[in-house]
C-alpha cells in the first residue's frame, strides 16, 4: 500500500513538474514566423483564415465577403498559394520533389491579406480600418524527403505501376469497350452507351494494389531533410476614419528562418526577426511612458538531438534581443541547455541549465527538484531545543 502511494505521488510529481515547466518556458517559438502573416498581424486566429484552393473558390470568397464587390470586407482574412491555385496543373511530382530555387520559391509562396475594423486609440470613437498584407516563401526546403517517406513513396509507386498495367490489360481485353470508344470518337455527342458500359467496367475491376496504395499514402508526411530557408514578411496599413486618403503603416515585420535537418534526428534552427512599430508605447530609462516608433531585432538558434524512436532529447537554445530604435536599452541574450527523458507522452524527467536575459544563471526542471527531494529523505529531523 505504502509503495503504491509513493509510486502515485512520484508519477503525480513528474506530471505536475512537466506541466509547470512547460507553462514557464519561454523559447524560440516566440520568434517563429507566423503561418499566415497578414492574419497574425491583425490578431486573427489561424482557424478563421480562408484558404481557397482554386481561382473560382477564391473569387466566390471575395464576392461573398465584399457584398458583391461593393466595399471592403469586414474582419476577413485570406491566404492563397498562387503556384497551386494558378499553375497547379503544371506542377508534376518531379517539380514537387525538386529543390531548385525557382521551384522552391514559387511552390512555397503564399500571399495573405486581412481586413479588420476597430476603434482608434486614444480616440476610441473614431473608426479605424486596418488592412494587412503578408508574404511567405521557401528559398531552400531540403534536398530530399526522409528515408521513411522515400520508402513509402517507392512502395506506392510500385503498387501504382502494377495497377496501371493491370487496368490497361483489363481495358484492352474488353473488345466491346474498345469498340464503344471507336464509335464515340466518330460520334462525340453520343457517348451515353460508352459511359454506362464504362461505369460497370470500373465497378467490377478489382486490384489488391488499391489497398496497398491507401496504406502507403494515408498519413504520409512529406518530411524533407537538408538545408531550409524561409522568408516571411508582413505589414499593416491603418486607415483612420476609414478614409483611403489618410493612411499610415502601423506595423511591419520580416522573419528569416533557416535550419538543417539530418536523417538521424539532429536539427539546427535559426531565426532572425525585425519588427517595426511606428506608433508604439514603451517605457524609457526614467520609467516614463513614451509613444513613438520602435524597431526591434531578435535572433535565435536551437540545436536539437532527438533520435527517432528514442526516449531522450537534448537541445540548446540561444536568443538575442536588441531594440535598435530608440537606442535606450542594451542588447541582451539568453542561453539554455535542455535534456529530457520521456517515460510516456505525459511523463518525463527534464533538466535545464542556462543564462537568462538579465545575466542570472538558471537551473530548472524536475531533475533538480527531485534531487532536492531525495537529498531531503533520511535527514535527521530537526529537534526543538528544550
Amino acid at each position, binding site marked *: 500500500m505504502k509503495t503504491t502511494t509513493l509510486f502515485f505521488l512520484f508519477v503525480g510529481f513528474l506530471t505536475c513538474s512537466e506541466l509547470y515547466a512547460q507553462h514557464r518556458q519561454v523559447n524560440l517559438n516566440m520568434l517563429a514566423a507566423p503561418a499566415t502573416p497578414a492574419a497574425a498581424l491583425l490578431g486573427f486566429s489561424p482557424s478563421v483564415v480562408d484558404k481557397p484552393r482554386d481561382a473560382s473558390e477564391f473569387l466566390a470568397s471575395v464576392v461573398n465577403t465584399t457584398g458583391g464587390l461593393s466595399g471592403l470586407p469586414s474582419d476577413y482574412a485570406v491566404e492563397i498559394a498562387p503556384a497551386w491555385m494558378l499553375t497547379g496543373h503544371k506542377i508534376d511530382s518531379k*517539380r*514537387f520533389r525538386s529543390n531548385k530555387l525557382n521551384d522552391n520559391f514559387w511552390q512555397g509562396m503564399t500571399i495573405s491579406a486581412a481586413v479588420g475594423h476597430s476603434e482608434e486609440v486614444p480616440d476610441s470613437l473614431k473608426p479605424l480600418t486596418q488592412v494587412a498584407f503578408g508574404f511567405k516563401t521557401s528559398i531552400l526546403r531540403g534536398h530530399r524527403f526522409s528515408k521513411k517517406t522515400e520508402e513509402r513513396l517507392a512502395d506506392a509507386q510500385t503498387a501504382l505501376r502494377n495497377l496501371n498495367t493491370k487496368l490497361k490489360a483489363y481495358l*484492352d481485353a474488353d*473488345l466491346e469497350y474498345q469498340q464503344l470508344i471507336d464509335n464515340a470518337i466518330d460520334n462525340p455527342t453520343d457517348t451515353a452507351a460508352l459511359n454506362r458500359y464504362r461505369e460497370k467496367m470500373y465497378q467490377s475491376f478489382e486490384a489488391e494494389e488499391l489497398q496497398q496504395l491507401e496504406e502507403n499514402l494515408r498519413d504520409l508526411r512529406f518530411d524533407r531533410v537538408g538545408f531550409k530557408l524561409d522568408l516571411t514578411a508582413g505589414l499593416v496599413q491603418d486607415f483612420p476614419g476609414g478614409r483611403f486618403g489618410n493612411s499610415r503603416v502601423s506595423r511591419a515585420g520580416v522573419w528569416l528562418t533557416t535550419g538543417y535537418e539530418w536523417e538521424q534526428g539532429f536539427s539546427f534552427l535559426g531565426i532572425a526577426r525585425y519588427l517595426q512599430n511606428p506608433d508604439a508605447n514603451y517605457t524609457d530609462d526614467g520609467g516614463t511612458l513614451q509613444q513613438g516608433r520602435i524597431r526591434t531585432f531578435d535572433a535565435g538558434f536551437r540545436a536539437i538531438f532527438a533520435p527517432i524512436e528514442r526516449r531522450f532529447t537534448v537541445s540548446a537554445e540561444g536568443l538575442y534581443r536588441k531594440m535598435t530604435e530608440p537606442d535606450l536599452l542594451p542588447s541582451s541574450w539568453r542561453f539554455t541547455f535542455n535534456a529530457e527523458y520521456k517515460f510516456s507522452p505525459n511523463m518525463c524527467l527534464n533538466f535545464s541549465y542556462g543564462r537568462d536575459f538579465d545575466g542570472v544563471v538558471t537551473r530548472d526542471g524536475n531533475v533538480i527538484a527531485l534531487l532536492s527531494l531525495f537529498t531531503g529523505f533520511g535527514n535527521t529531523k530537526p529537534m526543538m531545543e528544550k
Partner: protein
Amino acid sequence: MALIPAFPILGKCPLKLDGSPLTLRVIVGQGQLNEGSYDIKATVKSPPSASGIVQSGLPIALGADTDLVGQRLSVLITVAAMLSLDTSITVDLTGGKTDIHIVNATKANQIGDVVAYEAYFRFTKT
C-alpha cells in the same frame, strides 16, 4: 480506397501527311504520384505497333505521321491522390494539322484514391 474513372478524352488528330513527327506529352499536375502507359493500334484486335510508358513532362516521339495514319493512340494515366484531393492531367499532341492541348481535372474522395485518366486519339487524313 477507390478507383475513380475520369471522363475520357476522345478525339481525332488530323495529320499533315508530309512525314512530320508526332509527339505526345502528358503532364500530371498537383504534384501527385502517377504512372502512365500508351499504345498505338490499327484496330482494336490488332497487336500494338508501338507501346511504352508515359512519364509526366517527358515528350514521347510517336513516329512520322505517314506511318500513323488510320491508327489509334490509347493513353492510360493512373494518378494517386497523395498531396491533396485535386488531380489533373494535361495532354499535348503536336505535329498534326493543329496542336492538341487538353486539360482534364477530377477530384478524389480521399487521400490514397486513384483517378484513372484515359485518352484516345485516332490519326486521320482530314
